[in-house]
């Protein structure tokens, strides 16, 4: 199904229905807000980020990726008490990067997805850290161990999320 190491013209590009485009991010944000109440460990996961990466790599369109990431991030920001834009900027960067990378490499292999998710999770956290500390003035703590561990946990969950997204994506 996947086209490996191909030029941009040969890469499979997918799209999602409008319903899926709206509902899936909403469900992701909802679960991210609801599940930590029952399972406190769930705060280490970032479902909206996984959905952003999933959409971006499937569409392989940087513009669509940054817009999707930006909107999901702003939605996530709106639920917090922090200024709106922290997650928005982080996910905009991730959406753009994931789409751009999706054009160049195979992103449908579970191994690649695992590594990419760790990479993008760390990128997301770095951008968030810089913005939150530099612009908003929040006290932030950085721990590579924590970030890599969380990234790995998100990557495992991401493989499942991407598999679910594969079921609803449509070939163009």
């Amino acid at each position, binding site marked *: 199904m996947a086209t490996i190491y191909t030029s941009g013209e040969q890469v499979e590009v997918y799209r999602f229905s409008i319903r899926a485009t709206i509902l899936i991010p909403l469900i992701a944000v*909802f679960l991210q*807000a609801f599940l930590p109440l029952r399972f406190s460990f769930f705060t280490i996961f970032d479902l909206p980020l996984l959905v952003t990466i999933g959409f971006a790599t499937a569409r392989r369109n*940087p513009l669509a990726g940054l817009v999707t990431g930006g909107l999901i991030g702003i939605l996530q920001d709106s639920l*917090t*008490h922090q200024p709106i834009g922290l997650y928005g*900027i982080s996910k905009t960067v991730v959406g753009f990067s994931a789409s751009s990378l999706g054009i160049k490499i195979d992103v449908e292999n579970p191994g690649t997805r695992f590594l990419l998710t760790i990479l993008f999770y760390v990128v997301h956290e770095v951008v968030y850290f810089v913005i939150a500390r530099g612009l908003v003035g929040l006290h*932030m703590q950085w721990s590579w161990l924590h970030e890599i561990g969380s990234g790995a946990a998100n990557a495992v969950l991401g493989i499942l999320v991407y598999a679910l997204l594969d079921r609803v994506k449509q070939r163009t």
Partner: protein
Amino acid sequence: MDVLGRYRNLIVLVGVLFAQVLGLAVQVKRPTDSGSTHLIRIWAVGAVTPLEKALVWAQTSTHNLWHNYLYLRGVRAENRALKQEIERMRLEEARMTQDADQAHRLQALLAFKEQFISQTLPAQVIGSTGSEMSRSVYIDKGAHDGIKRDMAVITKDGIVGKVLYVYPSTSLVLLIDDQTSGVGAILEKQRLQGILRGTPSGEVVLEKVMSDETVPVGEEVLTSGGDGIFPKGLPVGKVTRISPGSELFLNIRVWPAVNLSHLEEVLVVTKIDERQTQPDQTGPVRAVDILAERLPTVPPKPENAADVAGKNPIAPAGGSANAAAPKSTSPNAASPIAEGKPKPASGAATADTKPKPSPGAASGSVPSPGVPKATNPATGTANHAPHTVPPAAQAKPNPTAGVASTGVPKTGQAKTVGAPSPAAPVVKKNVPAGTFSAGVSPAGTSAASVQAGRSPASTQPPGAAKKPAPKPVSPAVPPKPQPAVQDPPQ
């Protein structure tokens, strides 16, 4: 043009990022509650929270159906009611403890004001922000329910946080472990004040305590009331670790009293009353007074009744104690109000707790001016009015008030005394028979004074009340004035 087309994606990315950074800068520059982002937040919350509410409702309904009807019908509901009662009483206890401590420390400050939680609204936690950087939760009550910004949120165990954003049907509660929160706190025993803050890692620390102070591990931390949000004296947590902090301050780690990661139901403090604390004028409470509060209604007797009894060994032992007893010559015996003690309602089920402004008969039927009415003539029960009578009025004997008991009633008679009252079994339970039969309390006070303050009408059997009383006995020793005790604030 070709360059623009070539770098179109990058240009758009930079543009989008620039716009967001600009928006962020505007929000940082201005307060977040200015309304610049309120609309976006309302939309987002409106999109997400209905789903959360529905899920929580379904979960709760299923849970309730199983536990209330299928599993143990009725028991759970009763248990819940009892837990709510415990919650209420814990809050009350915390407040009362603080009240007592405060009264001793601030007796001289008549104008001192204190805050009391007078109204709370239960709410259910329906969601979180899902972010480690924003430790907040959503509750299912909002502006429509009377929630306002900066209201305190608590549970039975202690404080949770404060209301930060209010939406029509939901509210965002900032937890105390968020790094942007701040709570005025005080160490329970050391009385050192500080500011409680959250850390980025979710811990709670007490700041601004000088490093030359000694703070023991395990010390309770309470709210100080200095933040204007939380009333004073609510539990915050316990000190778990102390380390040198920045500059001259200690870094005190506090383990929150509430498990903030497993919140389900909370109470929003919707109304706080501010009252002036009355200085405590009672001094130490005697055991006999406590005993007197627990006793059921008994006939009024003067404090020196034992002395009289001692001098009159031929006192009648049979018949009703009241019949043999001269009516009270002591204002202490005249009324529980005169004693100034708050009377538990266990004494008489129909105890009237409302103040009676009109002076009535102190005991028996003879009106006693200046002495608050002790007996509800309609019901024959004691008026447990939260009155404070001046010591002068208490000390003043009422010569017209009946006769005092000169005899030492037998145990059986003592039981009979309380028979008309529903609380009569309490006599048997709480008071050793010897106390009554001996007629003298362990504190050396006569049983009559122990029994003082009880409504005669509620204690006298109808027959006994009609019996002619012997001639009044003049007290050999004038009755001691009883200190006035102010009722605790409700």
